[in-house]
């Protein structure tokens, strides 16, 4: 099979799995997850084949795998649908397929496959546990998710959206995949729709990303209008970029290229949860944990960054290598600001998943900032390493929660929140695999030097920012990185170290192999993936392994970015922020037992800088007011209903007239009753001549005969 055909086939298994599960196999949980995981495995296999063929090609950037066919006729031309795997696509495909496969596998264990049905579980709510009798003793064990099959169907659709987005060679199909994921994130965040909080979170996520998507669609429309094509390879030619770069728009003095890039970037702000559209992501933690990993690590949020990476040539049109263009400054500012801003919130969160949610926002900010300052390779590198260790952390947190729920079922005290870190502690002995993998993921997130992937990618971003003299970005990101290490260590300390703080934590249990195996696989990549991108001039380690990543991914761009000169300042900064953050995090939290002892529970951080409240006041309340007062009360009930009621009244009035002055007198009285009356009258008056006497009849017949005969005679003959 040619590589191009194989690329076409990559997104298909998950969508087929979706339809198979929805239409045929949803009654059978075992069959459904077999199909779902099997489809993910097939896509993974195909992706691996494509990836290894791709790295074997010399100059893949100039001659990528591509294939397209005409799709929608638009007058003389066609909108094309097609696939494209260039170095960036291949690298992204690699991590996407692995994380998706692992998440599918993990979901089997997370949703308690093989456990009995719950005592009083209902569809739309998380399972509550089942009572079983063993050796004459009753005890409560986790129960299987009631909507198990549906979960795998949704995941399949989601995976289809992501694969479509990654392999597509144009903005249109990229946008299609983008929107499919938007739909799936809505469905999956609201998976436990029986919980009001999950419902609200789903709506919030959908609405917030919609804001970004509208602008993105505007950007796509503008791009199509300006160039007449949506195909990446056709847009990113020198002439097209030059034309776009020199066409001026009336908005902020931006060139067409800059404006389009910014519009598309707003889509990313929504999808990748950047400030100011970040508010949906923490709430999205209401979904099942595999969903959190799927949406917040491997796929959807990465899709936002991936879109900017794809649009990088557009964003950097006119970029001379030193002075940032307006569009790039905006991107860099939003990224850097988000990175710091989200990190400050993460410090004060107590929910294990919410910490990770804010950490994701912060790390995505790193990538966006890197793209904003033109550090293309560093951004892609961090995107990939982050996907591995953040998926690992999310799945690890799910494993922790699962273990805690086990403890909750054991004690029967449902008041204990299994997600609150202050209810945990000492889990390292209870859940060793989860602990060690979580530790690896956490250290990677913090950027623990040399060993972990996170160090290499984050260091590269910092080095890039420093090397090109973007000091503001450099300092912001360094502070954010310090806080990242700090809150990560806080999380690890509170969760795994020390002694159990509750009975539930004492009875926590390690999770089944379907959950731990993905952790181990992801932990492997969270460590080793960093080694493919070690800078050549790095002291001691540089040159041991060739900086394959830089060569490979850098080849995507028309102008291959040059490797940075080594500088000791960013290296020392990275070392200091990572180790310092970890150390202070451990120092500050090793003896903390209750939230009251936590010095960082500052109200403004705890309440996420009051963004939810501000948006509620600025947008939600006015929207309610607008819909209730203006739309509903005034427009709908006043104007529209008024017009309709007038129509009703006029019609009724006309009807009354017609009824009273035409229907009743003419039709009913005259024609209806009149005909009947006349017939009756004639009958009554003719009655006497029917005497029953045969001779009178004969006489009458004779008279009529004579009269008619005479009349005919005179009329016809005479």
């Amino acid at each position, binding site marked *: 099979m040619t590589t191009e055909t194989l690329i076409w086939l990559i997104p298909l298994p998950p969508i087929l799995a979706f339809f198979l599960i929805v239409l045929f196999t949803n009654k059978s949980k075992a069959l459904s997850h077999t199909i779902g995981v099997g489809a993910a495995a097939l896509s993974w296999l195909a992706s691996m084949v494509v990836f290894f063929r791709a790295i074997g090609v010399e100059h893949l950037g100039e001659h990528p795998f591509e294939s397209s066919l005409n799709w929608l006729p638009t007058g003389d031309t066609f909108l094309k649908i097609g696939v494209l795997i260039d170095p960036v696509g291949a690298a992204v495909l690699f991590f996407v397929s692995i994380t998706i496969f692992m998440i599918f596998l993990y979901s089997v264990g997370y949703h308690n496959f093989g456990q009995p049905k719950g005592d009083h579980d209902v569809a739309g709510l998380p399972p509550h546990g089942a009572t079983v009798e063993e050796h004459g003793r009753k005890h409560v064990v986790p129960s299987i998710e009631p909507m198990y099959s549906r979960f795998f169907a949704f995941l399949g659709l989601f995976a289809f959206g992501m694969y479509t987005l990654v392999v597509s060679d144009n903005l249109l199909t990229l946008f299609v995949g983008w929107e499919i994921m938007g739909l799936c994130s809505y469905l999956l965040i609201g998976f436990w729709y029986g919980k009001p909080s999950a419902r609200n979170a789903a709506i919030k996520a959908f609405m917030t990303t919609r804001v970004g998507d509208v602008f993105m669609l505007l950007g796509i429309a503008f791009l199509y209008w300006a160039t007449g094509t949506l195909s990446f390879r056709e847009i990113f030619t020198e002439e097209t970029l030059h034309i776009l770069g020199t066409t001026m728009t009336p908005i902020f003095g931006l060139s067409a290229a800059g404006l389009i890039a910014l519009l598309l970037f707003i889509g990313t702000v929504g999808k990748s949860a950047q400030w100011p559209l970040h508010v949906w992501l923490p709430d999205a933690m209401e979904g099942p944990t595999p969903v959190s990993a799927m949406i917040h690590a491997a796929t959807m949020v990465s899709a936002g960054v991936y879109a900017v990476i794809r649009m990088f040539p557009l964003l950097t049109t006119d970029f001379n290598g030193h002075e940032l263009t307006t569009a790039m400054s905006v991107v860099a500012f939003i990224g850097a600001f988000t990175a710091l801003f989200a990190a400050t919130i993460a410090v004060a969160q107590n929910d294990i998943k919410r910490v990770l949610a804010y950490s994701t926002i912060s790390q995505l900010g790193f990538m966006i900032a890197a793209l904003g300052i033109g550090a293309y390779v560093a951004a892609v590198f961090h995107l990939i390493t982050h996907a591995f260790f953040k998926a690992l952390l999310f799945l690890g947190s799910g494993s922790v929660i699962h273990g805690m729920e086990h403890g909750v079922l054991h004690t029967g005290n449902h008041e204990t929140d299994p997600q609150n870190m202050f209810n945990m502690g000492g889990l390292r002995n209870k859940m060793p695999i989860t602990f060690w993998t979580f530790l690896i993921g956490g250290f990677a997130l913090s950027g623990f030097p040399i060993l972990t992937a996170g160090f290499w990618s984050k260091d590269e971003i910092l080095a890039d920012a420093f090397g090109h003299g973007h000091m503001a970005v450099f300092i912001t990101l360094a502070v954010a990185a310090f806080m990242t290490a700090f809150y990560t260590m806080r999380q690890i300390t509170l969760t795994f170290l020390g002694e159990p703080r509750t009975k539930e934590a004492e009875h926590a249990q390690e999770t089944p192999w379907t959950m731990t195996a993905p952790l181990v696989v992801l932990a492997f990549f969270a460590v080793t993936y960093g080694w493919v991108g070690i800078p050549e001039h790095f002291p001691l380690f540089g040159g041991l392994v060739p900086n394959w990543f830089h060569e490979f991914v850098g080849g995507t761009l028309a102008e291959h970015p040059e490797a940075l000169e080594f500088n000791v300042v960013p290296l020392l900064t990275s070392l200091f922020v990572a180790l310092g953050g970890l150390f202070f995090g451990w120092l500050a939290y090793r003896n903390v037992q209750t939230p009251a002892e936590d010095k960082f529970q500052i109200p403004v951080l705890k309440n996420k800088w009051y963004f939810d409240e501000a948006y509620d006041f600025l947008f939600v309340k006015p929207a309610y007011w607008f819909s209730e007062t203006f739309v509903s009360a005034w427009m709908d009930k006043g104007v529209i209903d008024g017009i309709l009621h007038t129509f009703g009244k006029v019609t009724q009035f006309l009807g009354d007239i017609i009824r009273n002055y035409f229907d009743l007198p003419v039709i009913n009285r005259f024609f209806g009753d009149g005909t009947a009356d006349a017939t009756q009258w004639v009958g009554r008056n003719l*009655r*006497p001549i*029917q*005497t*029953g*006497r*045969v*001779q009178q009849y*004969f*006489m009458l017949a*004779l008279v009529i005969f004579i009269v008619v005969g005479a009349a005919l005679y005179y009329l016809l003959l005479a």
Partner: protein
Amino acid sequence: MVPLSWYLILSAGLFSIGLFGVLTRRNAVAILLGVELMLNSVNVNLAAFWRYGDVTQMAGQVFAIIVFAVAAAEVAVGLALVISVYRKRNTVIADDIDLMKW
């Protein structure tokens, strides 16, 4: 040879007598007799017109024979009705048999 008009006058006279009988007699049998007279006056007409017209055309005679047949059938049915009514109601007076009215 007797002129045609004589036959016609005879026929008209017979018809009128029959008609008068039908209209004035109270006895149902007598009414039937009147009807027979009227039919036969027609036969006289038919025969006369044949004889004074084109004798090679047999239509007049054939019609007369059909009228005989019809008259015979009519009398058979009529008398049967009269007898049947007489048995039920013990009368043959036409004016008394007036159940068929409003």
